[in-house]
């Protein structure tokens, strides 16, 4: 196992806590807004780490470029869908959670 492979594996393993945190937030947070926050923030970073690790482990540079493009596309899509869901919730007058 070369050094880049080792570093790639390390980055992918590092992504696990972020996905774990995002999923936990989605399940445990009190309202739609905080859940969206957990999901989009943590998962985007986790995916970024997986993509970075995969780029290090990919043998051809074209594969790396494709992986990077996938990450960017997911970033754009998840950011905007997060906004759209939150905005739809706001229009339906769902109030944000407050500390009771």
């Amino acid at each position, binding site marked *: 196992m070369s050094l880049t492979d080792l570093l790639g594996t390390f980055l992918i393993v590092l992504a696990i806590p972020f996905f774990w945190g995002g999923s936990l937030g989605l399940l445990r947070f009190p309202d739609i807004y905080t859940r969206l926050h957990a999901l989009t923030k943590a998962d985007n970073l986790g995916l970024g780490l997986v993509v970075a690790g995969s780029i290090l482990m990919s043998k051809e540079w074209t594969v790396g470029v494709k992986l990077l493009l996938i990450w960017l*596309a997911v970033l*754009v*899509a998840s950011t*905007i869908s997060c*906004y*759209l869901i939150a*905005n739809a919730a706001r229009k339906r007058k769902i109030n944000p959670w407050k500390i009771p």
Partner: protein
Amino acid sequence: MENSLNYAAIAFDGVLALVLLVLAWQLLRSPNLFKAIVLFISFGLMLSLAWIRLKAIDIALAEAAIGAGLTGALFLTALDRLQRREENDREEQDARWKSQEKKPIITTEASDQGLAAMIRKNKNHFFSRPLQTIAAISVLALTCILGWTVWTLPPFSDQMSALVSSNMPISGVENPVTAVLLNFRGYDTLLEIGVLLLAAVGVISVAPSAVMRTGSSPSPILLLLIRLLLPFIILVSGYILWIGKYAPGGAFQAGAVLAAGGILLATAAVRFNLSASKAMPLATGIGLLIFLLVALATMIICGNYLQYPVALAGTLILVIEAAATLSIAAVLVRLFVGVKSDTDNPAPGEDSQTLIFEEENTIK
């Protein structure tokens, strides 16, 4: 190292199979339709993972794009229409009761508590309903027959794949799946394209004027997303079509990706009148048209239906696939926007507004 990787793969596959079963069960028994649809989409994504594990990348791509993505979106739209129709019914009923000033006599569960309650009720009295019992017995019988068929299948032999790989040099492509779909079994694919066209004709005959969903004007941020993603989607669709010659990909996957672009436009309520557009019917039919033309030409020149000349096979396959991509995308978009329910009818006096191509809602 090799051994532990093997165990990890088995564990992964086991968990995946378990997740698939649990998701399938949950989505079937969920009384909440929205939840069932979300579970269905997750089921499709997990299923495409399973296809990847079985090294069937072509099917995994199709499952993720069509099975999870497009079908999920179609279900969500259908649910939206159902709920809006229920609301309309309720409002109408309320108005009728008010005008008659009588106590309501007809209180149907369907409009009061929605479809979910109806399903729950059906579940409680499952065997009191003969229709459901017959359906359940038929499904069970079909499952048994299918199970028996799979059980009695002859043991897997490599004859077919050996036959395909020995004939790869004359197929004109390098991806065995594309070779089988477009060359060795081109006839099947021709019929599939025909079936898709039939489906589109069915939708068009039920909903002749496909008016995009009306409603509030789309959010500028959604329009931004479309501006960013649409060129990208078209590029990816072309790429998937092109790569089908060498690697997993091809007309069906490319068409599904292109359709996703059209559906994105539809969900943003970007209004364009499909029935007035001349490009839409052309795009819907061009796949079958080109396929049939190639089939006839090969019959006249080479003597056999769909027997490509070896030197031209690659080009012909690409031409057919390009046309099929357009048709598949057009049919899928048509399925999505073509279904026009009565609740979509604008109120009198409003219709002229809806049918007009509205400048401010289109992408500039």
